[in-house]
């Protein structure tokens, strides 16, 4: 037998490189199209815009790799933001406690999703759609349909905005995003929960037959996604220095789109954090670029839609060619 071994590792990283190529193409295009685009401050702006969706996408990558889906991340994030307000403003907790509380609250949302999916056996789409509705209602109920402001914590907005590099504008929020990316990448590719996420997404029944406690690990996976939702909620609240009780609907689709553009399969079993980040950046760069080049706003979603189609198609062709 003549085996032509292409190690899976090498093939994987080539793929990511290719997705990156699409991103770079878009970056180059807009750099020529507008003098305002390729400036440090605008690039940081893009990263800031990518932070919240990006963090949501990181968490949901775990869920999608395991063959599930999470539609509750958008409104769940809003609810976590509101909880930040409840803890810090209504209940007067110190900032650190409020932040941790809200993140854990996100974990709780994820845990409930995981419970509904793995213990009760509900289809992930329905389980998380239900949670999406519940979270969007609860945000309004809990906040009394008003934004909650961090009166007692004027510094809370620094969590997102603090300039980590003195002199240059590089906000802490973006740094947090980068750190979380590394953490997520390690967890997904180097730890047991990541391995089981791939295994469950690849063949859940076979994984269970192999003696893996699939119920427990799915709970863990959804809880991880929930923790990321919590972090995103806290950062969004910090950025706006207020907990906004509306919105979030549609954000789940944006985050899932980032994951899929990054090459993660909605069937489960295949995917990477690097891809997700590239996917999130493609969307953020595109949106920003169209604004900077002053494309009429009604055309922007047309262009974004087309570019997503083309980017994924090109990525697919290249993979096949490989």
């Amino acid at each position, binding site marked *: 037998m003549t085996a032509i071994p292409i190690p899976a590792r090498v093939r994987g990283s080539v793929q990511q490189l290719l997705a990156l190529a699409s991103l770079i193409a878009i970056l180059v295009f807009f750099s020529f199209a507008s003098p305002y685009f390729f400036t440090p401050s605008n690039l940081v702006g893009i990263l800031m815009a990518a932070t919240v969706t990006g963090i949501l996408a990181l968490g949901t990558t775990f869920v999608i790799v395991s063959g599930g889906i999470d539609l509750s991340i958008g409104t769940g994030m809003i609810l976590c933001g509101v909880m930040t307000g409840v803890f810090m403003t209504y209940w007067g907790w110190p900032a650190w406690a409020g932040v941790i509380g809200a993140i854990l609250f996100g974990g709780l949302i994820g845990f409930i999703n995981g419970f509904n999916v793995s213990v009760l056996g509900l289809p992930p789409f329905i389980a998380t759609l239900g949670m999406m509705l519940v979270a969007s209602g609860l945000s309004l109920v809990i906040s009394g349909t008003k934004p909650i402001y961090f009166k007692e914590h004027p510094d809370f907005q620094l969590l997102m905005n603090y300039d980590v590099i003195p002199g240059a504008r590089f906000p802490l929020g973006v740094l947090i995003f980068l750190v979380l990316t590394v953490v997520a990448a390690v967890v997904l590719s180097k730890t047991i929960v990541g391995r089981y996420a791939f295994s469950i997404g690849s*063949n859940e029944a076979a994984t269970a037959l192999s003696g893996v406690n699939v119920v427990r690990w799915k709970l863990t996976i959804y809880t991880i996604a929930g923790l990321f939702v919590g972090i995103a909620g806290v950062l969004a609240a910090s950025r706006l220095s207020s907990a906004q009780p509306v919105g979030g609907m549609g954000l789940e689709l944006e985050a899932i789109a980032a994951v899929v553009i990054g090459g993660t399969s909605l069937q489960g079993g295949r995917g990477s954090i690097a891809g997700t980040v590239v996917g999130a950046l493609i969307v953020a760069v595109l949106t920003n670029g169209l604004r900077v080049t002053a494309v009429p706003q009604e055309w922007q979603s047309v262009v974004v839609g087309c570019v997503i189609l083309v980017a994924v198609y090109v990525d697919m062709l290249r993979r096949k060619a490989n």
Partner: protein
Amino acid sequence: MTLLEVRGASKSFPGVRALDDVDLELRHGEVLALVGENGAGKSTLMKLLSGIDRPDGGEFFLDGVQYTPASPRHAQELGISIIHQELNLMPDLTVAQNIFIGREPRIGGLLLSERALNRRTRELLDRLGLPLEPTDLIGDLTVARQQMVEIARALSFNARVLVMDEPTAALNEVEVNTLFGLIRRFVTPTTGVIYISHRMHELAEITDRITVLRDGRYVDTLDTASSTVPQVISLMVGRTITGEQRPRAAVVTGEPVLSVRGLHTKALLRDVSFEVRRGEILGFAGLMGAGRTELARALVGADRKDGGTVTVHGREVAISNPADAARAGIGYLSEDRKRYGVLLGRSVRDNVVLASMPRFTSAFGLVADRMIGKTATDYVAKLRIRTPSTGQLVQNLSGGNQQKTVIAKWLVRDCDVLIFDEPTRGIDVGAKDEIYALLDELAADGKAIVMISSELPEVLRMSHRIAVMCQGRITAVLDSTDASQELIMDYATRFSAQGTVTS
């Protein structure tokens, strides 16, 4: 004291009594064969033993101690390791990751060590003598190689009881011999093997005793040494089968129906040319990975061709997908039943007519359900598919009956050329004879048949001519009168130094 004992196991599914008060006894240091027709309940019994399904009644004893397996993991911990009839692998993970799933080596209890994992896998594979790469993705492997991974995984546990549910169904002679070597090494005075197979000639070679099930009931247990194959078969089917040996057919001289010239694929196939005549069965033999499946798939347009022509009834046809092939009158039955054969979640009825829907559809696009039902019932009877009704979901059928359903699908379609890739995989002896008879009948009706099989006796028995493949080339086309197992194996191993074939 026995190693493993089952007393009075019973199990029912909706509409089916799969096991009815079955006893089984596995002694220390023996290989026990478990045989029975398709749907006799063999796999079901093994699922009870290994904690996948709960029994409705019955008791299990391991070394005389009663046990109730709560989960596959629990059974594994007790020392019961199982190779399932249906492959249970994660296609997106590597060989190593599959073998050690749930037992990954870790650094500091937290991080996975891919290096240690691959090293351990390499050691295991070397010890077992299996030609696999730890880092290959399962999804890229053929069924046979996937089966080897299953075997490696089962043997990687320190099991006392090893259950093998038709491990050789996807293997050819060479690999079967490798497997038998592994089994012989595994058996010690403290261990035992339950071996399920439909290949009767294997039993004498590897097993010590034979337990027979029929219709979910225990029939008898025989000593292999003192029993004959016809004896076992008659116990299995409850009647005597005159396993008549088909006289080797003369060369068929009808006009060529299918002729393939210079077929070529980037990955493997090199200049493959052959033709099949009206009324002929052309057998394809070769080692695993010789390219027979790849040839069939490229031929019907399931995979990309990079060169070559296909002619049907003298007219060249352009085939870019299986629908084109079917329109040209070529049907392909895949070796990978689960992935490319059946619709597991649909009924037997839906599966049987899948390839011929337009025939059951009126001008307005309405489907004729009554006609479908009748046809399905006919074929269920004709192929003796064991199912409570034609509305039963295929996933609830036993493996062999699923295979019959796929065959029925192509019989209903009525193609001029039928390519059967491992058509008798997982089919019991009685049914095998029926399928052989069917193939003969089809050929006699004037169809041209390509039969790919890894069982040499089967190829020798059925074919008018035999094409032998090695490394993507046809190394010989033999008339069946000239062919023998030795000759075929000789041509099947004509590797050249440069990796090309000298013929």
